[in-house]
């Protein structure tokens, strides 16, 4: 059963990702991106990382994708739908990506992954929270500083200059 769900979600995600890369209109790409994110959120749920799924939707879909759409809107006039969507090196890029996938696939399937089939803990979120303020407190703080800096930076860069 799980396999079917996985297959479905995988298809959605990859399909949407392909459309992101290949779509002619940027806005359509953004929307496909959202779909891809949602697919990934579903994958997380399948992997019993519920909190992350929610975070994924909140942050990625709610913030980042929104932001992307804002940016698209703000630069709307420029993008002409008739213009080519790929640059000159799309062949090389595609070739490389394909090659990379083949190699990665070969590696992934041949490596003996040291895994255990333990079930997910019930209090995963609690543990996550404890980690954030405990073992990983410093990275947590740093991450918050990073966010502040990014925020300030973004404001300054994108500010209207009407002096």
């Amino acid at each position: 059963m799980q396999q079917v769900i996985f297959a479905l979600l995988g298809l959605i995600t990859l399909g949407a990702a392909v459309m992101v890369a290949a779509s002619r209109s940027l806005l359509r790409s953004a929307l496909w991106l959202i779909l891809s994110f949602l697919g990934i959120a579903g994958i997380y749920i399948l992997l019993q990382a519920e909190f992350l799924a929610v975070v994924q939707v909140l942050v990625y879909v709610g913030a980042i994708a929104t932001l992307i759409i804002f940016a698209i809107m703000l630069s709307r006039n420029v993008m002409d739908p008739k213009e080519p969507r790929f640059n000159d090196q799309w062949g090389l890029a595609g070739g490389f990506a394909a090659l990379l996938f083949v190699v990665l696939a070969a590696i992934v399937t041949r490596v003996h992954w040291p895994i255990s089939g333990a079930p997910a803990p019930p209090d995963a979120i609690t543990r996550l929270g404890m980690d954030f303020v405990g073992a990983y407190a410093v990275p947590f703080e740093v991450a918050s500083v990073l966010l502040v800096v990014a925020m300030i930076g973004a404001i300054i860069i994108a500010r209207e200059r009407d002096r």
Partner: protein
Amino acid sequence: MIFRLVWLLPLLPFVGFALIVLFTNRNKQLSAGLAIGGIGISWLLGWAIAFAAFKQEGLAANPFRLSRDWLPTGSTWQAFGFAVDPLSAVMLFMVPFVCLLIFVYSVGYMGVGKSEGHHAMRGVPAEPGHVDPLSSRFFAYIALFACGMIGLVLADNLILLMVFWELMGLCSYLLIGFWYARKYDDPTKITPKQAGLKAFLTTRVGDTIMLAGIVLLLVQTGSFSFSTIFQPQTLATLASTTVNLPVFGPTPWATVIAILIFCGAIGKSAQFPLHVWLPDAMEGPTPVSALIHAATMVSAGVYLVIRTYPLMAAVENGAALRLIMTIGTFTALFAATIAVAQNDIKKVLAYSTISQLGFMFAALGAGGYVAATFHLMTHAFFKALLFLGSGSVIHGMEHGHHEGAGRAASPTQVRPNEERFDPQDMRNMGGLFRRMPRTAWTFIIGGMALSGLPFVTAGFWSKDEILAESFHTGHRVVFIVLAVTALVTAFYTARQIMMTFFGKPRTAAAEHANEHDSAFTWMTWPLMVLAVFAIAGGWIGISTTFPVLGVLSRNAFHHTIGAMVEAMGIAAEELPFAATPLLASIVASLGGLALGWAVYRAYAAGRFAPGLSPLQRQESTLHVQESTLHVQETTLHVPDPLERPMGRVYGWLQKKYRIDELYGAFVTSTLRLSNWLFRFDDVLVIDPIVDGAGRLGRRLSELSRWSDTHIVDAAVNGVGRVIGAAGGQVRRIQTGKVQNYLLVALVTLSVLLFAFLLMPK
């Protein structure tokens, strides 16, 4: 002892010269004072040394020497310095003294102390009654000259002697051309500048030959110093070793060198054929003529021969002495005859000097060492006296002209550069005895000395000794010629005196001539002092063998100078008395004077000479009358009494046998030839070489430029281009596009990663 101060004698006038040139040029009086001061101290010191030397016995054999090693000649040194021996002592007695007197005279002659005239020009004579603008320079020059002459007589070696010789040559040039800006309308009349050059160049001919002789002497003996050269062994060697000459065959070195050195004396003492410069040197101021061309410089040549007499006499019956005697004798008569026909008062004296120098050389050639030296000394005194006197006469004539002509004629007639009126022409003079008494008396005394007026004048004693010497040594021809010359000398002297001082004045200038100017005080005192010496100077040389007077005389002169002769190993007793020379002297002197007086008596008095046509007589009388009434300042048309009788000969004499013209032609053609040769060389030889060098240089530079452009530049630029091209290719990586870089990065990363991962451990 006082001899140690001998080096001061030439130095002091030189210091005077240096001080004037450097500091006191503007102040004429101070300059004159410095010059006189310098020579004055030299005179006192010179007399002190001279008299000390006279007292000292044995100085001839062992002269006092003050020298130091000066000239390095390989491994040896040539010593230079001064020497005091009887000969130089006698010269020291005469030279500084005469120089001093002439310096004092110059103060008056140059007009020092007066103001400069309104039209004062530098380089031309000052107007009468005014000072010459370049007086300081004059005193500087004569001070330098005095240094030269004193140094000459003291020098103890030939090179130092030559240095002073040349120094005097320079001063002679400077002083003859002292009035360098003076020009004449008449192109045949020589200007002072030309005369200076002529003097210099003519004496140069002699000097060069002399230098050759000195160098040969050095080669043969290895020394310049008199003490070394005149060693008996050295002289014997020189006399015996011979050199093979083209025409003359084997000749002793002594003769060759002696003749070469004598050539220098020919030039300096204006003997034939190099005599031409001396008459023209009269363009210089009269003190110059007195100092340089009568008393001192021209006698330097005689001094040189006296000094080197051991060399001249080294060969028994040598050609050198014979040549000297011949030239001297010939010149004596030659010059005397020219003097007879000269009208310029100074020119007569110039030729007289040449003639008297010839006497001295003749004496030397005949072996009369003492006689020649004696005459040298007495001649200096009375010739200086005569020249200074003539200067005084000329000054008086100029004053007279200024006063006489200036009042009546228009002032524009008399300008410095025009010589319509010649104050030196004796034909314009006459009757000056009453108007310029002091000048007249002293001049007459000098003239008597020159003529050899018996017993009372110095000239008589010295000239008599020369005649006696030539007679005694058996040179009859010489004796006769010299006697005749003495007669001619007396004749032209009388002529000169008659024309100048006696009779009636022939021009207004002569009429107004006077001695009243203050300058004359300066001028007449030296004249009087010299006159005393012209009379008394001979008394120290009266031969003890002379009848009557001889007993009273010690003949100090012979004693002193004779010691020099004895030091050479030659016997030097006084000559035994012989009547013939004495008689000849007296006859020549008195006879000549009387003849001159007789011939020119009428001329002087303004009357015609016998032999003129009645028409000429009338003309001449009229002219004379006119000139005394009117203000006609042109030369008189009264002919010289000798003109007609002598006919064409007179013309020759007046034109100085046309020797100047002959030399002129020779010199001009030589100059033109050398001009042509030099131009030929320059255009056809030097120019092509120079141009060729230039062209070669240019070719080389073009080649260099080509290689620079095509080889060096190409290489350098080529390197640059290659690098640029390579860079151009390499820069294609930098597309500027982020995604390109990203792709490359990813690919590289992947490759590295997988390579690392898949590497066998």
